[in-house]
């Protein structure tokens, strides 16, 4: 598109000659023969440069200049006149003329250059305007981003702080102030630390300082922050150096996340979900873990088999808490611990007056487990009557409370466990075959500890830590001699027996290592150590003599005696009954 000029001059010959001259130079020229018509053309047209004569009848060139300049401060106006009187030149320039050119043949070159310069300046003005607009947009955008960033900076719950290369605080957010006890003392443009208040290296600001000084990122450092006036907090700190394009250190930034609550919740979850309490790295246990993961995703009835003490309850916990019913209740019933009537009432509930002592209605464990899981331990011990009722629950998911005819529907997953051989019981006719098959839809068989002895060191470490914490003692483990004994022993009571053995050891140990003398007599005896033992007896052969000694040592307390003997309390009771010892 051609550059356009509006030429205002009352003299016809000037208009024609100069107008044509400018057209020959490539400009588009529109002509106006008076100041008035020139103003009209300026308002209506799209002239980019104005060429203006001064002495015109009607509106004088100065008046035209004044009016145009009032409306447009940028448009170049070249005043052209036959005379170059100094007072006219000064006045024209004061009124905003871009240049003053003499209307003569010898000065046409100056006019040509002035016009070219005017367009060039106009381009610069336009360019400047574009840049100014862009700059304004950029500044506006920057301000918007700044506000957004500030908003984000202050609204995020994590503490944020930035410092420069010298350690001077540049900025920090409100969360930082609230989260870090030192945050309240922070000031922008002040150092994070002063000679008066040195910051410990293991606190958040210390980590930030380390990151700055060492020019290295500190990622997810866990900090337990405890100050006298505040509760202990667990913080996760990430500090990173800030570098410029030349990779020079320009400062550092730090993000602090308060994970106190998450930590508490995680601990709660870990305590509830016992899956991780199944300890063992042996192949047999790896298979069990795989099986548990598979079975936790389905809702079928599971039968857990295993000798006493192999951890059936832990497996049940894992099945429930990693399964689809984990948010529902988990009810546990030891079927061997209750008489038939009590178990009936415990499992299915009763109504007021159903039997002597039934003073009010009571819901049973099945009802309580609605939406969750019920664990029936020692399932092999239940009577025929209970077996029948249980079969009905398995088949119809319904039952009646004791003393009631009202049928109750339940929805719960049944996980049962036993250490007895149910097939043998079925053969003997003491356990219903149909119930057996209902219960063993899916089976998990836990190996006895003697079949996975490679897990013993792990279990020893686990229980030592557990009892150290429980007894508030620093017990680090067992001596090599003890470990040797533990690895040789057959563990008829399985993990429970190992647990009790280590509990015994931790109790008797003053701290440090559990030594031979801290082991139960049965183990000392098994070790064959003459100075400590009572003779070389196999642990499973709990003799009358040993039991009497332990009972005497424990002053008749069966639990303590069982601990001393390294066996389960129930085993001790059975032995007492077997040897017909006084209870």
């Amino acid at each position, binding site marked *: 598109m051609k550059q356009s000029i509006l030429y205002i001059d009352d*003299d*016809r*010959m*000037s208009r*024609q*000659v*100069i107008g*044509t*001259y400018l057209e*020959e130079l490539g400009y588009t020229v529109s002509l106006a023969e008076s100041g008035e018509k020139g103003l009209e053309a300026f308002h209506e047209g799209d002239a980019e440069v104005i060429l203006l004569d001064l002495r015109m009848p009607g509106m004088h060139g100065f008046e035209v200049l004044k009016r145009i300049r009032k409306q447009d401060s940028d448009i170049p106006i070249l005043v052209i006149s*036959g005379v170059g009187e100094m007072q006219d030149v000064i006045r024209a320039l004061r009124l905003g003329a871009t240049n003053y050119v003499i*209307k*003569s*043949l*010898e000065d*046409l*070159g100056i006019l040509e250059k002035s016009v070219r310069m005017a367009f060039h300046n106009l381009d610069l003005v336009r360019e400047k305007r574009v840049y100014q607009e862009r700059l304004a947009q950029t500044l506006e955008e920057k301000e918007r981003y700044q506000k957004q960033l500030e908003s984000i900076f202050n609204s995020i719950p994590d503490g944020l702080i930035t410092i420069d290369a010298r350690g001077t605080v540049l900025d920090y957010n409100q969360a930082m102030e609230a989260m870090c006890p030192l945050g309240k003392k922070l000031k922008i443009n002040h150092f994070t630390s002063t000679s008066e208040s040195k910051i410990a290296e293991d606190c958040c600001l210390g980590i930030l300082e380390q990151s700055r000084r060492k020019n290295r990122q500190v990622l997810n450092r866990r900090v337990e922050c405890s100050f006298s006036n505040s509760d202990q907090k667990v913080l996760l700190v990430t500090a990173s150096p800030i570098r410029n394009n030349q990779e020079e250190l320009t400062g550092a930034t730090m993000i602090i996340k308060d994970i106190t609550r998450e930590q508490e919740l995680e601990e709660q979850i870990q305590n509830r979900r016992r899956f991780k309490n199944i300890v063992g790295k042996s192949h047999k246990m790896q298979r069990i873990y795989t099986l548990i993961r598979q079975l936790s995703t389905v809702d079928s009835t599971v039968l857990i088999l295993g000798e006493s003490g192999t951890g059936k309850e832990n497996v049940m916990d894992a099945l429930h808490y990693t399964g689809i019913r984990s948010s529902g209740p988990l009810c546990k019933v030891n079927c061997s611990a209750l008489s038939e009537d009590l178990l009936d009432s415990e499992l299915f509930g009763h109504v007021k007056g159903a039997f002597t002592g039934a003073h009010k209605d009571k819901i049973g464990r099945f009802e309580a487990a609605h939406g969750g899981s019920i664990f029936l331990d020692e399932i092999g011990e239940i009577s025929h009557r209970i077996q029948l009722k249980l079969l009905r629950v398995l088949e119809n998911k319904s039952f009646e409370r004791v003393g009631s005819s009202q049928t109750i529907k339940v929805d719960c997953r049944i996980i049962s466990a036993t250490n007895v051989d149910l097939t043998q019981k079925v053969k003997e006719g003491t356990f219903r075959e149909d119930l057996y098959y209902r219960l063993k839809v899916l089976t998990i068989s836990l190996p006895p500890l003697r079949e996975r002895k490679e897990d013993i060191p792990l279990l020893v470490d686990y229980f030592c830590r557990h009892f150290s914490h429980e007894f508030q003692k620093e017990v680090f483990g067992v001596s090599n001699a003890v470990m040797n004994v533990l690895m040789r022993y057959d563990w008829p009571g399985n993990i429970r027996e190992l647990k009790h053995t280590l509990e015994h050891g931790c109790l008797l140990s003053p701290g440090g290592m559990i030594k031979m003398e801290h082991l139960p007599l049965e183990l000392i005896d098994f070790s064959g150590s003459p100075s400590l033992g009572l003779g070389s007896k196999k642990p499973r052969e709990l003799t009358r003599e040993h039991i009497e000694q332990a009972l005497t040592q424990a002053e008749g307390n069966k639990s303590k005696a069982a601990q001393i003997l390294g066996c389960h309390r129930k085993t001790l009771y059975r032995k007492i009954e077997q040897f017909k010892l006084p209870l």
Partner: protein
Amino acid sequence: MIQSKQPEQVKEYLDLDNLRNRFSGKSRLLFIMKQEFVALQQSVIPEMQSAYAEQNRQALKDLAHTLKGNAALIGALRVREMSEQIEALSDEDLESLKNHLDQLPSVMRQTIDYLEWFLEDRDSCLEDK
């Protein structure tokens, strides 16, 4: 190429150097310029004579000023000089400018002749340049 001889007095009437610098090769512009000067001659001389007859000093002065400007624009040296003298003398004794006014038509005619020569002989002008 045919080269017409440069008239002897042309440089007294026309600013040939600047004309060549600015207008050579621009035949349309030269044509308009000559045409406008012819039109000016046809209008300005009777108007000046009339103003003189009416002793209208201001009209005479304005006409001389316009003529001076236009003559300057096209490099008509003699016309410019003469109109400048008329403009200056119009404030004084009008009798003293009578001689200039009488000579003006022939000077303008001669200028137009030289402009025509310049227009027709622009190629030689270029070479001459």
